[in-house]
């Protein structure tokens, strides 16, 4: 079932949270809405679910207009951040709840709930109350409960954010596997870029009620359309391009930066450079090599993060795996190199 959102406006106490947003999610896709808190991603999800009314615009599941359909008639499965298990019902009864609402017969309920629990590896836990489960187990029950009704659309609101790091990865894999197996169109909300990159077919990066970029994880990471997306997904140094600067050689107070890109941006633009793509060393020379002063250094295990100051008040974050610059002390000067192909001119 594809999902189409057209020109959607949603407000919260008179203030527009979403303003004319449009989006198409293909049938069977795993689509992630990614963005910082307050960007409107949960609002969009809850509007798709029907818990928030649309002021303007349309939402369609397939060809069916659901904009004014109440949530209980939309045929959705929903997974919540706080699991939202019914605390007074057993695991079995939680999973059976949606089937009972659909008047499914007892024997069928038994087999379908059994299957659903087996899929999430909780067959032995049917008789337990949610309070007797760990966080990870609870979220698996919630997942089974949402999937057992074979919904047209699965909506997940930050389902992993209450779990610790290890469990997050584990449940993430369960979610991905179940989604592939069932082929249910899924919308997943998160603020965690790693989650988004690992799970999704498509990611929509949101910022203040707008979709900034929609694309595959690879496209979003490799070809961010804006400084905002580059920084939010993967992290990036953003150097504002001086007014009227014409590429490919752009002069900054610290020197001239030459970029490989041919098509340039009209209007305000930034140069985005990933921290791990910047070279560091005393002996560097040639094009795009600049003098810098080390401000701070932190050892992060698999890499070392350097904060460097350049002339004109610019600072750059550099990630290196090698130990070449390890003898460098704060306050000392060094040289850094920005490869032509690593510097992308994009809108802010």
């Amino acid at each position: 079932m594809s999902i189409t959102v057209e020109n959607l406006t949603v407000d919260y106490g008179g203030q527009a949270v979403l303003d004319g947003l449009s989006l198409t999610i293909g049938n069977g896709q795993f689509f992630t809405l990614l963005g910082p808190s307050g960007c409107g991603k949960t609002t969009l999800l809850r509007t798709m679910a029907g818990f928030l009314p649309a002021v303007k615009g349309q939402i369609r599941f397939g060809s069916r207009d659901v904009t004014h359909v109440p949530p209980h008639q939309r045929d959705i499965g929903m997974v919540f951040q706080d699991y939202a298990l019914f605390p007074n019902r057993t695991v079995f009864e939680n999973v059976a709840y949606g089937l009972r609402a659909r008047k499914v017969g007892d024997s069928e309920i038994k087999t379908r709930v059994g299957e659903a629990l087996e899929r999430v590896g909780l067959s032995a836990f049917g008789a337990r109350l949610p309070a007797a489960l760990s966080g990870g187990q609870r979220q698996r029950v919630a997942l089974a409960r949402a999937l057992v009704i074979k919904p047209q659309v699965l909506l997940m609101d930050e389902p992993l954010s209450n779990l610790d790091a290890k469990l997050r990865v584990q449940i993430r894999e369960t979610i991905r596997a179940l989604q592939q197996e069932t082929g249910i169109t899924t919308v997943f909300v998160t603020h965690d870029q790693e989650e988004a990159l690992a799970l999704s077919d498509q990611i929509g990066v949101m910022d203040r009620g707008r979709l900034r970029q929609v694309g595959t994880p690879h496209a979003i990471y490799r070809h961010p359309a804006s400084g905002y997306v580059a920084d939010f997904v993967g992290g990036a140094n953003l150097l504002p391009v001086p007014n009227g600067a014409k590429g490919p050689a752009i002069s900054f107070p610290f020197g001239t930066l030459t970029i490989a890109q041919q098509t340039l941006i009209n209007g305000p633009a930034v140069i985005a450079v990933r921290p791990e793509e910047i070279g560091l060393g005393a002996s560097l020379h040639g094009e795009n090599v600049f003098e810098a002063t080390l401000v701070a250094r932190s050892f992060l295990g698999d890499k070392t993060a350097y904060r460097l100051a350049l002339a004109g008040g610019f600072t750059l974050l550099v990630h290196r795996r090698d130990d070449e610059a390890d003898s460098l002390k704060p306050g000392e000067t060094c040289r850094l190199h920005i490869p032509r192909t690593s510097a992308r001119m994009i809108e802010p």
Partner: protein
Amino acid sequence: MTERRLASPWFWLAAAAFITLAVFLAYPLLNVILGSFGRGAASGWQTLTTDAKYGAAILNTLFLGTGVTLLSLLLGVPLAYFAARHDFPGKSIIALLPLITLIIPEVIAAQTWLMLFGNNGIFTKWAAGFGLELPSFYGWFGLFTVMSFTYYTYIYIGTLAAIRGADVQLEEAAQSLGTSPFESRLRVLLPVILPSVLASALLVFTLVVGNFAVAMILSHKIPLLSVLTYQAAVAESGSDPVMQSTLATVSVAIVMIVLFIQRVVLARGRYETVQGRGARPIRLRGVAGLITGFLAALLTVISLLPLGTLVVGAFTRARGPVMRWGEWTLANLERVLINAPDPIINTLIYASLATMIGIAFATLLSVLIVKKKTMLTPVIDSLSMLPLALSGTVIGIGLVMSFNAGFLAMTGTGAIIVLAYIVRRLPFGVRNASSTLYNIPDSIEEASVSLGVPPVRSFLNVVLPLMVPAILAATVLTWTTTVAELSASIIVYSGGRETLPIKIFRLIDSGLMAQASAYGLVLISIIIVPIIVATRIGKVDLFASRS
């Protein structure tokens, strides 16, 4: 959007609730206030300023309120501190204290203190045997004693919760920064608990201002606001409708001012305590432990004294007002249970009706306030808390003025007693239900809806069952306070519809303590039995929603 709102069943429920509250709460209060202006020159406010009796009553009431509040603080705060932070011999007795406030109706407290220290009291006679003359218990002495020992438990409960909730790490932080343990407590713990202590102190103050039973029985020749208000409302020689309204308005104004102060203080001084660690009680050893234990036990025994006196009184032979201490009999109880059981039956009928209707309505209101917000929510919220600012006397007067005639004539029926009960206990029921509702996340209801169950059925399916324990606890608590209600019901009741507290009050007035004790014993059993059944058999945690 608007269409959606109108289509929601919750909106219509909210509208119905609002109309109910407006008719039975706002309208009577409005009548009271408007009534004070009288007609033409006969404004109550003029009389109030010219007749010195009324000025004195207001001053006396404020004096009594302040004094009792201070004494209650003096008793309650140290007790709470030692109970929270120390272990000492006999500490477990203190756990009984919150129950005492619940089970001893004020009218019985006043009665039993009189049986001990009144003109014919046990202690008075005993002291006279040694040639000692105790000061008369009628007047300030009795008022201060009975009210302080009745109300200090409110301070104790409030302070105890605050100290337990305070993060001991704050004190440790202060100590790590170089202040002594005592100084740390003074500079860190005290400011943190002060808002709660102040809140309970203001509660005590308003309870004293509105107190009817103790004031009526013990004030004697001291004019007090609540007593004059009652007398203006039901004087045998013809009531004074203008003065009753005026005095009632004054007491409403006093309580409103106190609530306003409370709001200002709380807005400024309530600190968000990031959930930290509670303190570990330190065992008091040796003399300090013994003294603390002795004092705490003494206080508890004094608090329980009324109960013992009541039991003894109920089984003591009496001829008229003369108690024959030491001569035992079952005649009092026999009379109460077999010859004149009407007050018992009335109480049971009115209180059970009021509890059932009241709890159902309070539950609905709390849902409308917490879960199903509509444009009417703020009004419903404040209206349902309004009775907190009204003494029973004021509520009674308002109801009589409003439903004496017209489209809802209820005076002279049992309905108005039930209504008075419901109105008085409404805020407690709403608070109880609301506090559990806040703990039930909206997401489980949404989960149910997302699984295909319509909204109202989702609510009934998943939210209501989770509220049941809290509703049961609220039912028991409402029952215990409703059967003991006196100040509103004594104004609205009519002949033949006496409830137990009213009957007891009348008997005390006539000095018939043995019979009053027997009725009192029945009243206390009616209060205790449900508590025991609920906590022991039903495993209901009565105080889960406090703290």
